[in-house]
């Protein structure tokens, strides 16, 4: 991709940790995201994949400036060439930068969904746009007058996606926007995001569904236990040998067409994080060096956090 503009969003060495009280008054710091690196260019759709608890939602909340009070964040975030400070995100979120939340609890249970999508505004333009979005999502107009509890899971999902589409965003962060949707609807949702990207926005889609992500995304960033372990082009997934990290290859092999194979073991919990490479305990290729510092390095037009290149 030609780079004549600065990236929409660039995250360098982001880390997030929680202050927690343990057994009485001892304060402990729980690092949940360490050294996270990510770049989203204009017109690009980046998928973030990773298992549950790997820190995907926290990344989204970190960018939007809505981390809980006991969380602290370090590192750098650059939005369109300028640092994304607290003040700046507070100004931009909701119009230029939007988030699609992960679960129903993010909708006000007592506000009609139509009003909710428009943030209570009675602007005619917005209403027109809302009707268009509803039409494209095969939602009846009367749904606008309903409350979240009256909707099915799939409808709720589409409502939450609509909250992003109603704005004119230049950066979209969608936190698992597709579960509960039929395959056809899930694809349509992803196409919406693709369209936003094609119109020049940067799109970050967080998902469990690697296959779906590969259909529409340009790049895939793989999370493991709060680390970014690989950044690959979507096309790299056509051939397993083009992938760089053993965990990414394991994800590839877990896709049904590729054998449906899963690797033993589970992602380590933050409190029992191994030194060095977080994946080492499950890795066949681990050596003594894996307990040391592992750099995030550029390999074949992508990045990997592994000492051994495939």
């Amino acid at each position, binding site marked *: 991709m030609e780079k004549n503009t600065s990236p929409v969003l660039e995250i360098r060495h982001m880390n997030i940790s929680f202050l927690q009280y343990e057994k009485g008054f001892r304060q402990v710091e729980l690092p949940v995201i360490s050294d996270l690196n990510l770049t989203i260019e204009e017109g690009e759709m980046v998928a973030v994949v990773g298992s549950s608890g790997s820190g995907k939602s926290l990344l989204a909340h970190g960018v939007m400036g809505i981390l809980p009070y006991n969380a602290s964040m370090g590192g750098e975030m650059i939005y369109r060439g300028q640092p994304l400070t607290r003040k700046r995100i507070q100004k*931009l979120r909701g119009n230029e930068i939007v988030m699609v939340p992960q679960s129903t609890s993010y909708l006000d249970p007592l506000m009609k969904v139509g009003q909710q999508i428009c*943030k209570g505004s009675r602007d005619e333009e917005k209403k027109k746009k809302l009707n268009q979005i509803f039409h494209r999502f095969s939602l009846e107009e009367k749904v606008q007058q309903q409350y979240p509890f009256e909707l099915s899971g799939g409808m709720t999902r589409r409502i939450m996606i609509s909250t992003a589409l109603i704005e004119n965003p230049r950066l979209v962060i969608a936190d698992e926007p597709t579960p509960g949707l039929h395959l056809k609807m899930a694809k349509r949702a992803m196409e919406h995001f693709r369209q936003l990207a094609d119109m020049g926005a940067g799109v970050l889609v967080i998902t469990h569904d690697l296959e779906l992500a590969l259909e529409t995304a340009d790049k895939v960033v793989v999370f493991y236990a709060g680390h970014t372990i690989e950044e690959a082009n979507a096309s790299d997934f056509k051939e397993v040998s083009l992938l760089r990290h053993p965990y990414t290859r394991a994800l590839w092999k877990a896709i049904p067409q590729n054998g449906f194979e899963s690797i033993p073991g589970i992602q380590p919990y933050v409190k029992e994080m191994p030194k060095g490479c977080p994946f080492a305990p499950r890795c066949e290729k681990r050596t003594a060096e894996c307990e040391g510092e592992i750099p995030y390095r550029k390999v074949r037009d992508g990045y990997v956090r592994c000492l051994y290149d495939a």
Partner: protein
Amino acid sequence: MSSSMGKTIGKNIIRMILLVIAVSIAAFTLMTLSPIDPLQANVGQAALGSMSQEQIAKLEEYWGVGQPPLQRYLAWAKDFFTGDMGVSLLYRQEVSKVIAVKLGNSMFLMVMAWVFSGILGFVLGAVAGMHRGRAADKIIRGYCLTVSSTPAFWIAMLLLIVFGVWLKVLPIGLSVPIGVEASGVTFLDRVRHAILPAVTLSITGISNIALHTREKMIDIMESDYVLFARARGESNWQIFKNHGFRNVIGPAMTLQFAAISEIFGGSVLVEQVFSYPGLGQAAVSAGLGSDLPLLMAITIISALFVFGGNLIANILYGVIDPRIRKGEKAV
């Protein structure tokens, strides 16, 4: 939906009748067990001493001394359920008339206190909850906690001293000016006399509603939907308008209707301190003076008020909250 509504109403009417019966039995029993001798209390030791045996017997009959309690209760109940509340022994007037006057006075006071404490308590609670931990919250919470641990009569006397005695801007008691003909009493006079008792009642009422509204508001502010509203760039005012108010008003209204009982209870004490001739004061004199018909009627009316308040609270909740309102339709 209408059939279930009918069922609810029917159920509540039965519940109300049972409540009235239970309350009347309880009140009657307490009255019968009361150690107060009605003759000594109402006629006086000295006067009794100078009376003849027949006179005393007549008085005893008037005050119901020596009658078998069950018989007395049944007689009262029969009259009451046919709409005859009897004659007040103390006021020598029909109970219904006494109550009409006293209730009028009390309602004036209680409605003022209820509306005032409801609105102010809601606003204070909402402000505190939206600004948790900040100066406004600390002041409001401090006020509420102080007031709720202070007896109402003490606040009443304090206000009386400051406004009635020192500043002399408000009357120290009663519901109308002394020595003015009934026709000369203006509405403003009545308001002036009701201010101090109403303020006392409000001051104590505020803290309850404010503290509850604050708690609920804090929960709302910590909810995912408010977090998402922040992520969508909604300002604090928009968050209050779109989400805070909407989610807190239902519980607050419910609480305020349920709090009718507290205002009712509080008014007994406050009316006593201000010698305000309302229902509360009548209840106290009826109790101490063994005025059975009056006390029974007051007790039952109070029970109906409390019951009504709670009933409205329950119904209101279903009307305000769409999850209950529409949920009913879906079933």
